[in-house]
């Protein structure tokens, strides 16, 4: 009996006709499931925001492009297609605040020239400061940031080793930064409830952001933490610098 010259190849070809459409259908089904889940999550988030807005008599705006230019420190000023959505503002405990979902896109190319677009989302909450202060950024510390800090920007070290391990601090004016980072502020920033957040003082505002847009469940915590920091700013920083007198000599010893 002669062997069938197309037997093995034919079976392989027939199998491919079955397997590849199945993979394709599987991928399509997965994308549909993800899209539905994303849509539902987005609707839940919007419903939660609407409930919060109604319960606390807050202001709400679906989208405002001007908000994307409110601040210049990262995550602002990076990427393209910047958007500020679900802007909510009002007062909490009689003190004003504003929060919005901020996003921007970045593109990366692999070795074969394929472009991948990534959307970066944040929930930004800010409150006003009594006076404008030099820019100061506090972000959760990690090995990459620390390495970058060693290369370029100077990471400000405090007397608290635990704080230095957990937070990376960049400041336009280190003198002001040390004045703000009192033991009381350091103790507050070491609280577990603030893990994964970043804080920025820029101009006459202090803001906090965390990755991914939120349903505002954490709003009281964030606004409370921001005002904890505002209240801890020493009074003399709000008065402005005192003129230094004539040099009285350097440290002896």
């Amino acid at each position, binding site marked *: 009996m002669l062997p069938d010259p197309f037997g093995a190849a034919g079976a392989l070809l027939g199998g491919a006709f079955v397997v590849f459409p199945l993979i394709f259908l599987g991928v399509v089904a997965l994308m549909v499931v993800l899209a539905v889940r994303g849509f539902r999550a987005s609707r839940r988030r919007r419903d939660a925001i609407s409930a919060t807005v109604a319960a606390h008599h807050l202001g709400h705006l679906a989208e405002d492009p001007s908000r994307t230019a409110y601040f210049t420190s990262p995550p602002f000023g990076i990427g393209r297609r910047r958007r500020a959505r679900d802007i909510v503002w009002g007062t909490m405990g009689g003190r004003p605040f504003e929060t919005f979902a901020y996003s921007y896109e970045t593109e990366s190319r692999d070795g074969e020239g394929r472009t991948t677009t990534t959307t970066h989302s944040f929930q930004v909450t800010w409150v006003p400061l009594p006076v404008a202060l030099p820019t100061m950024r506090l972000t959760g510390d990690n090995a990459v940031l620390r390495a970058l800090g060693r290369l370029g920007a100077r990471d400000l070290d*405090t007397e608290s080793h635990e704080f230095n391990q957990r937070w990376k601090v960049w400041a336009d004016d280190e003198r002001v930064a*040390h*004045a703000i980072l009192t033991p*009381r502020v350091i103790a*507050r920033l070491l609280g577990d409830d603030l893990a994964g957040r970043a804080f920025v003082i820029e101009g006459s505002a202090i803001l906090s952001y965390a990755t991914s847009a939120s349903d505002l469940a954490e709003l009281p915590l964030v606004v409370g933490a921001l005002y904890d920091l505002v209240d801890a700013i*020493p009074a003399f920083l709000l008065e402005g610098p*005192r003129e230094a007198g004539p040099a*009285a000599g*350097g*440290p002896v010893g």
Partner: protein
Amino acid sequence: MWEWILIALVVILVIVALWAVAAYNGLVRLRNLVQEAWRQIDVELQRRHDLIPNLVETVKGYAKHEASTLEAVTQARTIAAAPGSSPAEQAAQENVLTQALGRLFAVAEAYPDLKANQNFMQLQQELTNTEDRVAAGRRFYNANVRSLNTRIETFPTVIIANMFGFTREEYFETQDAARQAPNVQF
């Protein structure tokens, strides 16, 4: 062959020289920063010392029988205001003055008229404000001293530090109100 060895040696020497210049300049910059930070503390300490005579006079008007407390403050102030102290000596003197002032304010609690005196309240507020400035200046100064001392003691900058006579600076450790309240819960 020898040419290449010579070129490699010259390149290495240039790299070492550039590093040495950068390390030296970095140390000088830090030392100047430490000195400038100290001068700022000195300004605030002088301001603190200047407030005390007025405070003592105000308290004296209401609490004449607290002569020993007032005398302790005046004496501690005189010692702290004397020039030429090192940061560690100055810190010790400031701590004595802080304790004396603490006793003075405790005494003031027993005199309602004094506590309600506008001038006294203003002086107390100004003193608190100045102590906050000293505390902030101390943190800035100590952070720079820490950076300088670390560079002076770590390899390879220790070589440059020893060659050019850079020495460790002293920390300024005082007991300010903020440092005594690290566990405050909001």
